[in-house]
């Protein structure tokens, strides 16, 4: 590990908190990550010293805030290795980014010049069985609106996509494939390039849900090769309320608008309106100004730690935790059991104890983990469990915290034994 975790921890004020009289052990970063002081300060400083609305004012504050907002766009473009800053669209979260695409594709039905995005009866929309609801429901709804068929690539017992199904499910009828890079429920890292290659071969658009990948893996949109990639700020140590959609400029340029309103227009008349070029076309209304700026700070923070250092750090934690948890009688890992092609997120069940009870008892020891279906209910259905307990790690997680997790689960087992 090329960064010192104890130094990193000092950047996060909440980590000095106690819970039930014991120090907080925060193992719920896949749900939402904690914020370093620099990110908190970035928002506060903007409000206290430079705040105004963006892009709409000629006065000094307006100019300062616009510069800060657009600088955040540059930072995100750099983080994603995007060919152009105009390909970076700020959204509320990744959920909005994915719905933006679903609605813009839907609007292609009637929007002039957008024929190439049209989807209708006979066409197929493909996702995977391990999607987060935010990358599943928008496409189910789009299929219902357009009459297209909704299909999915199944997962195997180890929590991986069934490889042969990739070629079977993605066919000449497929118009669009939207899939997760790293699963939030299983930890699985999917073969993005393999899927993109298959989709390209049949002429389907590709969308990558990088919500869980962004904080943990290098995210190079040119290397991934997909048409659209989205992530969410709050999991990347950024503030709540901001996310990002990246898309190829030549596609964004023809994609119909989603939300109508201020700043996304070219000209408005009562008789009809025309629309601005990307990214403005997709940023209707007053943006999440302070949040986008602070997301820029978060991107800097992560870049400074080094995403490969982070990956290395988390990989060590994951291997150690998998080993510890597998050693407890009754523990079943839901997802890849080995530390290969998987991220720092571990879902498990404990025989005879409901996941909510596991999580609650861990909380009484200061350990914060999540229990539930993690917004990926089909995964639970697939493995025949009502829910799982999930521990997930971040830049501030220590091996000692993993020890506490393992001891905690062992103690839960004995309480219910």
């Amino acid at each position, binding site marked *: 590990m090329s960064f010192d975790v104890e130094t990193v921890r000092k950047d996060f004020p909440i980590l000095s908190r106690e819970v039930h009289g014991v120090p907080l052990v925060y193992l719920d970063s896949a749900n939402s990550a904690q914020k370093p002081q620099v990110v908190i300060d970035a928002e506060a400083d903007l409000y206290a010293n430079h705040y105004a609305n963006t892009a709409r004012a000629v006065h000094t504050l307006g100019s300062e805030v616009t510069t800060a907002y657009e600088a955040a766009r540059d930072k995100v473009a750099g983080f994603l290795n995007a060919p152009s800053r105009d390909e970076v669209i700020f959204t509320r979260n990744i959920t909005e980014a994915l719905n933006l695409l679903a609605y813009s594709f839907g609007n292609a039905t009637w929007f002039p010049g957008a024929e190439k995005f049209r989807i209708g009866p006979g066409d197929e929309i493909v996702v995977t069985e391990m999607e987060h609801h935010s990358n599943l429901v928008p496409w189910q709804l789009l299929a219902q609106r357009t009459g297209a068929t909704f299909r999915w690539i199944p997962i195997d017992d180890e929590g991986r996509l069934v490889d042969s199904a990739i070629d079977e499910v993605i066919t000449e009828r497929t118009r669009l494939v939207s899939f997760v890079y790293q699963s939030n429920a299983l930890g699985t890292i999917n073969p993005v390039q393999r899927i993109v290659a298959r989709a390209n071969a049949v002429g389907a658009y590709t969308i990558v849900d990088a919500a869980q990948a962004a904080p943990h893996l290098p995210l190079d949109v040119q290397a991934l090769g997909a048409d659209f990639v989205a992530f969410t700020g709050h999991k990347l140590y950024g503030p709540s309320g901001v996310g990002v959609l990246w898309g190829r400029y030549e596609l964004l340029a023809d994609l119909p608008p989603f939300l109508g309103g201020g700043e996304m227009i070219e000209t408005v008349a009562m008789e009809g309106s025309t629309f601005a070029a990307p990214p403005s076309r997709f940023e209707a209304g007053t943006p999440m100004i302070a949040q986008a700026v602070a997301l820029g700070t978060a991107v800097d923070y992560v870049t400074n730690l080094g995403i490969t250092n982070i990956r290395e750090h988390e990989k060590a934690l994951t291997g150690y935790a998998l080993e510890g948890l597998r050693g407890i009688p009754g523990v079943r890992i839901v997802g890849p059991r080995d530390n290969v092609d998987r991220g720092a997120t571990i879902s498990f069940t404990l025989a005879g104890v409901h996941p*909510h009870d596991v999580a*609650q008892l861990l909380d009484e020891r200061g350990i914060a983990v999540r229990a539930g279906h993690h917004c990926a209910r089909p995964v639970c259905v697939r493995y025949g469990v*009502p829910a799982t307990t999930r521990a997930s790690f971040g830049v501030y997680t220590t091996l000692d915290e993993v020890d506490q997790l393992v001891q905690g689960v062992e*103690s839960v087992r004995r309480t*219910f034994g």
Partner: protein
Amino acid sequence: MSAPIDSMYQQIILDHYKNPSHHGLLDDFDAEVHHVNPTCGDEVTLRLKVKDGEITDLGWDGEGCSISQASTSVMSDLVVGKPVADALAVQQRFLELMQSRGQGELTDRDEEQLDDAVAFEGVSKYPARVKCALLGWMAMKSAVAEAGWADTEEVAG
């Protein structure tokens, strides 16, 4: 290594979870209801029998966390053999306790009335778990209504 003294998981709760009372569905019943807690998926199916304004029997089956299962068990012990009015009164008191966000003051009378159910006091501090504790109690209330004994006032009067 064990849970803290003020744990939500009082021994009474664990005992009821491991050995639930009135578990299993009745064959002879006046009403059946099925309740689900959509947030966490806990489920309970409950059947009961009412005769002359009294809950003469109750049986249930369920799936879920220890809080929902144990609470249903405790509820069953408390209401079987009671007049509907009394059962609903206990239900009301339990509901209030659960909604007290850890601020509930238990009088001696409460302790007597709620019996084992006082063990759930700690749950009220966790809004996310309150619905678990209430699942069986709400099912009982619905079942009573289903059986035609809805109106407390009327029954009590």
